[in-house]
Each structure stands twice: as structure tokens, then as C-alpha cells.
């Protein structure tokens, strides 16, 4: 992507496009990656509730897979996940493996 020169920028760094933070893919910061194990998921949506970003996708009140564009790999979802009968539905794995 070609970066803008100073003549093309908005005075005072005001951002005129709403929701432009979606363009900033913070998932690239991730060092550890959560993996969703569907068969252990009881659909409690704790992961969605606790996620400090919006990296847990939900459709029709059902959990879907992670949005890795924005997941920074903080691990809060894996920590909070109650799983099913002691088996976690989210586990953290080293990124790149």
C-alpha cells in the first residue's frame, strides 16, 4: 500500500471515515493462536463476552470460528472457556506451528 504524502492528509489528523479501525488488522501482532474445538463447545458465548476485541464471530446466537484478522492471541477466551465435562473448547497454540 502506498502511504499518503503530507499534502493529501487531513489537517489535525482528524479521521473522516467512521469505523476505519477495521482497516487495521491487529491479528498480525499475535504470538499465540487460539484454536476452537467445536465438539467441546457448549455455546455459552463466554469467549465472545470476554474477548477484548471482536475476534469471536457469532451468527444467529451461535459461535463460529475466530476472526484471526483481529485476534491478538491474548488467551482470555481460552482461560474463561468452561468446556464440556472438563474438556476445553478453546486451547492456545504457538503461532506458526
Amino acid at each position, binding site marked *: 500500500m502506498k*502511504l*499518503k*504524502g*503530507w499534502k493529501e*492528509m*487531513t*489537517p*489535525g*489528523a*482528524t*479521521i*473522516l*471515515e*467512521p469505523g*476505519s479501525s477495521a482497516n487495521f488488522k491487529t491479528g498480525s501482532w499475535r504470538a499465540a493462536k487460539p484454536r476452537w474445538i467445536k465438539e467441546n463447545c457448549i455455546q455459552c458465548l463466554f469467549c465472545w463476552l470476554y474477548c477484548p476485541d471482536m475476534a469471536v464471530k457469532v451468527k444467529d446466537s451461535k459461535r463460529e470460528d475466530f476472526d484471526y484478522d483481529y485476534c491478538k492471541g491474548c488467551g482470555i477466551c481460552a482461560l474463561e472457556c468452561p468446556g464440556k465435562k472438563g474438556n476445553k473448547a478453546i486451547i492456545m497454540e504457538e503461532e506458526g506451528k
Partner: protein
Amino acid sequence: MGKIVAVTGNEAVANALRQINPDVCAAYPITPQTDLMQRFSSFASDGLVDTEMILVESEHSALSACIGASAAGGRAVTATAGPGLALMWEVLFVASGMRLPILMPVVNRSLSAPLNIHGDHSDAMGARDSGWIQLWSENAQEAYDNTVQALNIAEDMDIRLPIMVCMDGFIISHSIERVEYLDDDVVKNFVGEYKPLNPLLDIKHPKSIGPLILPDAYMEYKRMQHEAMSKVKDIVLKTADAFAQISGRKYGLFEAYRLDDAEVGIVILNSAAGTTKDVVDSFREKGIKAGLLKPRLFRPFPYEEVGEALKDLKAICVLDRADSFGAFAPLYVEIAASLYTYKTKPILINKVYGLGGRDYMPEHAEIVLNELVEIVKTGKVKNYKDYIGVRE
């Protein structure tokens, strides 16, 4: 027709603010500005202005509230002095970086320690690199006139930068002088309706202000600020022309007093220029070609024009009412930079005077001019930086 009155500098500037009738004023009292904002808040209490007056707990908050009001889309003003301006320091850069045309009269006062409430320029000189436009005023009339002109400069769509109007604490802020006021309608028409740029309250176009900007873009925004500043000079002159039409009073980037054929000269800001002009006259009567240059626009600094006005003199003393300990004082540095590009240039010396409200007397100007005459005669300089009016 305007009105001729006998008022203090603070009273004159408060009256200019009343005539401007800003949307928001957030202020905190500090000597010698207190009386200015007290008068303005009386106007607000008496219903003479439509201004939303916000009384805050510090100058840091005063300017922060102005930033919010200005970003929302309103015309915002405040005023401060000395340590109040120092406490605003962080926020000064926010106002200019966000390109908000806030108007702030600064009643120049010294900085502590030792604690001192009197007039000197340490406050505004400390803020010279904050990205604010600075207009300086010799007397109450100039402070009034500069305040009326300030917003036309700051709010120009090519500029959008905050502006300070400086006048000397006590010497001007608290002394009664003859001042010509313009009519309320005339000022109202001159200043005009406020046109916001990308206001937050334009809720049909949502936007974010004051974002985090990382190394990949920060420098571009700073370069833009320099560009905006470089356009100020022309707008100051255009505004001065329009102001002359309504007032009959002419302003430039600086005042050149008997400078055309001068051989020795003094460069000096604000109230002390008045005293110095009298002494220049008495030297002229003795047949000595003396002159004076009094900067009006200090930020951005008009290097080329000042250099052109001073280049043919033989010796110049820059008098500074602020110091930079272990270095030349701030005004001297600018004058030296203005003259640097010329092959032949005047001998340039620096004297610090009047700190903490110390009186600047005609004798001081005489000592300086006599020294310059001596320098021209002998070509020898004893001290490039020295102090006047200080006890050994």
C-alpha cells in the same frame, strides 16, 4: 463611529472579546490576566455576550475545554499569563496539532522561581515552538487591535491554527491609556461568522479526532503544520489591510521606526519599544542616525522581511525581556538568523533587560545606543551578550 476611551490593556482586550462574542470561553484566573477574564465573565453574567463561560480548576483544563469546544465546532477563547501558560504547555501542542483556531490573549509575566508576578516575556518565549501564531502588542490600542484581527488570521481555511495576542503584564494590562474602540457592529462584521472545519457536532458525518499516529504518519502531520504557518504572513498582511479600512490604523509584520537610513538600531518587543522610540528621536535630534524595529508577528517569524529591513545598518542591539541562560536570548537568535544570509551584515549584540518587571528607562536605551555608536566607531565589541539595568 468608534469611541475614544481611557482604559487599561486588560479592559481593552476584554472589550474586544465582548465584541467578538465567542461561543465558549474557559478560563482560570492568574495575575496579571485575572482582571481581563473577570471583566469578560461579567459581560457573560450580564448577558452582553452569548458565550458559554466554563470556570475550570487550572489552565491545563482551561485550554483543554477550549480544545473540546473548538473541535465540537465552536469559536473558543481563553486568556492566561506566566505560570498559567507554563501549565498549559502540554495542551498548547494539542491545540495546534489538532489545528484548532483558539484565541488566547497572553498577559506576559515572568516565570518562578523566585516567585514574581510582573511583566516579562519568559512565558510566551517558552511557548514559541508550540505551533501557535504569536502577535505582540506595544500598548493597549495594539492589544485591542490585534485581538480584533486575530481570529481572521487563525480561522483562515488555509491556516486553522491557534493564536496568542501578547501584551506586557501590568505595564500595559493595568495602566490606563487612550484607546479607540471600534463599533460593535463593525467588529462583528469584520470577524464574521465562525466556519468550523470538520466539527464533531456535524453528526451526519461521524469522525474521530486526536487519534494515535505512529511513526509512519506523524512527521507528515508536523510538516503540514509548518506549511500552514508559512502561509500566515500573507494572511496577517491581508487582515491588516482590511483592518486599516475599518480603523484607519495600519499594521505590518513589524514596525520599522526611523529605520530607512539608520546606522544604529534597536530591536525590541512590546511596551519597551515606546520608551525606545522617544530615545531614538532624541538621538536623531543630536544628528545620530538611530532607528528601531519592533516585531509584531513573532511566530511565524518573518525572517526575509526583517533581514531586508536591518541588513544595511552598521550595528544593532537586540533587547530581550526573556533570557535563555547560557545562550543568546530568544529574539536575538531570530534576528541573527534573519541576517545570516547577507554577505555584509551589521554587528549584532544582545542585551537582556526588564526581567520580572524591572523598569526599562530611557537611560537604558541611551546606554545601548551610545554603545552601538562606539562599536561603529571602533569596530570592537566588548560583550555580545550582556544585561542592562542589573546591579553588580
